[in-house]
């Protein structure tokens, strides 16, 4: 931990310093600290009462005051506010934009308290840490430790701090337990590990604060569930424990406040205090103004390539965000193709080799790069160098997501960040406009907080037994004090415990093998020490999708050579669709698959510039409900002043040829084309919900003997095609569209489909791993001995037919409802449009239907000439719609 003493007044020697986070000279007027009362249901913060509670008369003790003064700084109001909360022993949530000095604000009270305590202290060794800092990213924990060492060393504070992540070597971990630091910076998984140690009660007895960074991103995942349970446990060990959450702006701050506080009743949540820092300067966001024609459909944004390149040239450093890995690969490839000035442009996404990613990050921090094309991997985390511009290619899919990404530019809160949105098609123009309005109004659409997952609970219960024998009633009470589990009823809890013990099957076959048992003293404990080891190896909630690493090899005599560089990893299911000889884009290169050897895919560089398989899907986020609502509103009453003329013309034409749906309506169009009949619906509920809907509708059409042949879903629309005339079938004589879209769609058909659904099986696998029903594949272990592992798909089949109410199936359903199948959103939509489906029978394709119809074309047309064919198809369809 090197101190950076020299870089205080001058230009920063490195971007990892605190000093830009601390305000110079005098507090500026527009930085307000206010306590907000939040409208319980409103998505927007409404300032009710500005309470400069208690006006920061709190001053810094020495040597802190001197340290601030020496640099001509004044502590910011929110930093003092948190100090005040700490003195009164209160937990708090700090909501602040990036660059507001959030982290220092969180740590300052601990530093002050520790400095006084440690000076007065005789015994040099403590039982355990005073402050626990938890970050969602390993790298962030390390980075914060580095930043924090500057004030500590400059003031010569008698404070020790260390990081502990998955990468920390065993000997250092042991030392941390024997001689614990004052401040421990770590991750959620490590906390779970520490809590499961037999001496956890002693180790955490001196714990006084937990600081949770990027809380908004944690609470929406199972990691958040696990952490909340662990915090509840820590409160048992250290009753005076206080929590501090650091978060970006969110839609429902009350949920986060409750998450931080111990709950006593299911209905009246207790809340931590709230400190809000008003955003600094409003970001300067715009939609790319270009002379080029915005295409009707597509996701590749080739049309704006020259403009993007020009913008990169004009700015110092640019972050180019895209939504999927494939888009990142393609854009990077295309940019280099036209990169005549050889700007240093790099690529960063989750599948790339870790070493390569670190290299890009380092080069970025040293300001060596002109641009980085990246995915959500750079949404969070480390303070970058000076980013002048954020370009968002493709629609942002969520207002808060956009705000987070814009925040990556210019980590100084008083200067406006600059961002430019580049929509890839005309629907996305509307979505970008909606996101832009939201950014202007400061609206947020972060997802609602989760109901705690049962598979995570199962893991935690086992962890508790591993640490020490527990009493069932006391444990239930403790778990209910964690906000996500506040409504956990006793019966479900008992079933989870039973699941941990014997699998929870009604056929009591495994009682004699029970993993945890109730002993004579009434306490539950593990029945064999080996289960503790097993538990620790399988801890955590991040489930890896099976991947293979991609190794670049040479070729000799037609056979791939050994050795070569690892480029990254690719999902196994994508590679299964390839055959040797196929070419694809990865790591910015066009690669040829040579074969698969053990856990590696061997590839060579392809002389071709055009890959045969155009892209492979990475993760893709569906459109948020909030943006969908705004887009629907925009469609209902197109604002002529904001939308570009091309898009306006398109909508006018739609109004003339068919209809623009009003806000509450679901528009369904039917028309013939070629020898087929099409049915296109526009629910705007996101791709996942549309896929589920498409599957359910085609099943129902099949049962009505209406011969559906296929369907395709986008974020905005769903198209089904087949051989029967859907216009005539639903003209109202026999049935109407309301019959097709009725709510009982979610009954038997869904049940039956789920039995076979691959998505459902994948969800089940994740739950089974988290609940530790099956062991994870450990790196290195899967290689040794090709032991036949039992496939979770088969377990799922057996469980579904014999114990449909099993606790693990419940957990799976709960995940599927909000996750890959998005059923909750679908059922909300079906309920909403119950009486307002508008069926338009058309004689030919409508302008609004062109984009989704092109998606159908894309699935059929593959191969080298796809680009030209695609353009041709697009022109033909547009001509048809316009004629």
């Amino acid at each position, binding site marked *: 931990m090197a101190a950076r003493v020299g870089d205080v007044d001058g230009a920063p020697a490195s971007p990892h310093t605190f000093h830009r986070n601390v305000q110079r000279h005098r507090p500026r007027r527009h930085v307000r600290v206010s306590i907000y009362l939040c409208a319980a249901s409103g998505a927007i913060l409404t300032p009710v009462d500005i309470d400069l509670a208690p006006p920061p008369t709190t001053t810094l003790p020495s040597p802190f005051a001197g340290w601030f003064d020496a640099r001509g700084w004044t502590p910011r109001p929110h930093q003092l506010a948190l100090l005040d909360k700490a003195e009164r022993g209160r937990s708090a949530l700090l909501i602040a934009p990036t660059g507001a000095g959030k982290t220092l604000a969180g740590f300052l009270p601990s530093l002050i308290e520790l400095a006084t305590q440690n000076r007065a202290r005789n015994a040099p060794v403590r039982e355990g840490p005073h402050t626990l800092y938890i970050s969602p990213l390993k790298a962030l924990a390390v980075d914060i430790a580095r930043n924090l060492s500057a004030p500590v060393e400059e003031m010569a504070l008698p404070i020790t701090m260390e990081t502990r992540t998955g990468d920390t070597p065993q000997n250092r971990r042991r030392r941390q337990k024997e001689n614990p630091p004052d401040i421990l910076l770590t991750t959620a998984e490590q906390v779970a590990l520490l809590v499961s140690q037999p001496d956890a009660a002693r180790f955490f007895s001196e714990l006084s604060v937990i600081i949770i960074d990027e809380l908004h991103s944690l609470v929406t995942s199972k990691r958040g569930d696990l952490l909340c349970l662990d915090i509840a446990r820590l409160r048992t060990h250290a009753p005076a424990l206080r929590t501090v959450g650091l978060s970006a702006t969110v839609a429902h701050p009350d949920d986060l406040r409750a998450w931080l506080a111990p709950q006593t009743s299911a209905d009246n949540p207790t809340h931590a205090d709230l400190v809000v820092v008003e955003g600094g300067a409003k970001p300067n966001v715009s939609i790319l103004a270009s002379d080029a024609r915005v295409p009707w459909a597509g996701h590749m944004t080739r049309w704006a390539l020259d403009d993007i390149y020009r913008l990169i040239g004009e700015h110092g450093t640019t972050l180019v965000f895209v939504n999927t890995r494939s888009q990142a690969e393609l854009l990077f490839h295309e940019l280099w193709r036209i990169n005549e000035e050889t700007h240093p442009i790099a690529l960063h996404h989750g599948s790339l080799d870790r070493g390569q990613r670190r290299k890009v990050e380092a080069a970025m921090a040293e300001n060596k790069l002109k641009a980085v094309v990246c995915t959500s991997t750079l949404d969070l985390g480390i303070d970058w160098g000076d980013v002048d511009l954020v370009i968002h290619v493709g629609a942002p899919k969520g207002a808060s997501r956009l705000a987070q990404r814009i925040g990556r530019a210019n980590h100084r809160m008083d200067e406006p960040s600059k961002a430019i949105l580049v929509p890839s098609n005309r629907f996305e123009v509307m979505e970008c406009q909606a996101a832009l309005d939201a950014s202007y109004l400061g609206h947020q659409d972060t997802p609602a907080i989760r109901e705690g997952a049962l598979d995570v609970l199962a893991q935690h219960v086992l962890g508790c037994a591993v640490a020490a024998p527990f009493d069932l009633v006391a444990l239930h009470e403790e778990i209910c004090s964690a906000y996500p589990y506040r409504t956990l009823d006793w019966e*479900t809890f008992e079933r989870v415990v039973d699941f941990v013990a014997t699998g929870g099957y009604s056929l009591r076959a495994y009682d004699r093998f029970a993993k945890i048992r109730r002993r004579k003293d009434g306490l539950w404990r593990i029945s064999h020490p080996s*289960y503790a080891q097993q538990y620790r190896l399988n801890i955590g909630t991040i489930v890896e999708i099976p991947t293979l690493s991609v190794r670049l090899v040479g070729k000799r005599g037609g056979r791939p050579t050994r050795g070569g560089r690892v480029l990254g990893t690719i999902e196994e299911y994508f590679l299964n669709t390839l055959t040797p000889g196929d070419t694809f884009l990865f790591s910015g290169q066009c690669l040829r698959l040579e074969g698969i050897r053990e856990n590696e895919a061997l590839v060579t560089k392809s002389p071709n510039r055009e890959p045969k398989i155009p892209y492979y899907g990475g993760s893709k986020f569906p459109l948020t409900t909030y943006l969908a609502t705004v887009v629907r509103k925009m469609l209902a009453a197109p604002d002529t002043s904001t939308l570009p003329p091309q898009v306006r013309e398109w909508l006018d034409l739609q109004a003339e040829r068919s209809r623009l749906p009003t806000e509450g309506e679901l528009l369904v169009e039917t028309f013939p084309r070629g020898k087929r009949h099409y049915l296109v619906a526009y629910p705007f509920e996101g791709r996942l919900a549309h896929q589920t809907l498409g599957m359910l509708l085609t099943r129902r059409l099949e049962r009505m003997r209406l011969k559906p042949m296929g369907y395709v879903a986008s974020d905005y629309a769903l198209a089904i095609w087949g051989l029967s005339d859907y216009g005539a079938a639903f003209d109202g004589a026999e049935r109407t569209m309301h019959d097709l879209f009725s709510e009982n769609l979610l009954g038997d058909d869904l049940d039956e489909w*789920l039995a076979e659904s691959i998505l459902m099986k994948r969800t089940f696998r994740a739950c089974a791993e988290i609940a530790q029903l099956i062991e994870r594949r450990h790196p290195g272990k899967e290689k040794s001995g090709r032991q036949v592992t039992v496939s979770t798909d*088969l*377990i799922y089949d057996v469980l579904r037919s014999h114990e449909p109410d099993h606790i693990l199936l*419940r957990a799976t359903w*709960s995940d599927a409802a*909000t996750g890959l199948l998005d059923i909750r959103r679908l059922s909300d939509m079906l309920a909403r449009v119950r009486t307002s489906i508008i069926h338009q029978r058309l004689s030919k394709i409508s302008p609004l239907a062109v984009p989704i119809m092109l998606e159908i074309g894309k699935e059929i047309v593959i191969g080298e000439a796809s680009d030209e064919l695609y353009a041709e198809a697009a022109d033909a369809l547009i001509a048809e719609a316009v004629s």
Partner: protein
Amino acid sequence: MSNAFGTSAMRAFTLPGQIRQPRPARPRPPARRAFVAGMDALLDPSGALYWPAERTLVVSDLHLETGSSYARQGQMLPPYDSSVTLARLAEVTRHYTPHRIISLGDSFHDPFGAERLLPHDVKTLRGVMEGAEMIWITGNHDHASAARFGGAVFDEFCLAGVTFRHIPTEGSVFEPEVAGHLHPAASGGSGIRRPVFIGCEVRLVMPAFGCLAGGVA
């Protein structure tokens, strides 16, 4: 919240007032006739082989008690796999009414599996063995533990010139041979994997019959 924890999601799947109707049983898919490993045999879609000339039914890798075998080590897999596998076996036995049943090894997932078989599963197994002579081939997982239910135990079994053994011989063979052990499977499009028979005129590798036994591509 009035409803039980976690059930709000389930409501989306099964709406109130609906009762799940039992589906009508599907017709039995037909077996394929093929000349493999010196036998004019019927390859049943369940993964069993029937040799009409000898009235012999061959199944491989039942892996009974897989669930409890894992449970012993702390992984509580569903305890229903033996019932499912044995019910399948009973069904093919009823269909072909063989005089002889050969289980090609790995009938149990581990050497103690036979002791753990639950009473109602033992009953099913005895029912299967009632009308037929049972031949247990020893496998690498179970050794000879299945003998406690009756029937004969062999390392290898020869019938009308065809050798039945658990682990296939390495290299080429010249005498007809039927083996198991490898759990062959193939994946079709869209990620669906199914166990398959792999063989030619001289030799055959049987798919695993056990419901949790899975397959290796």
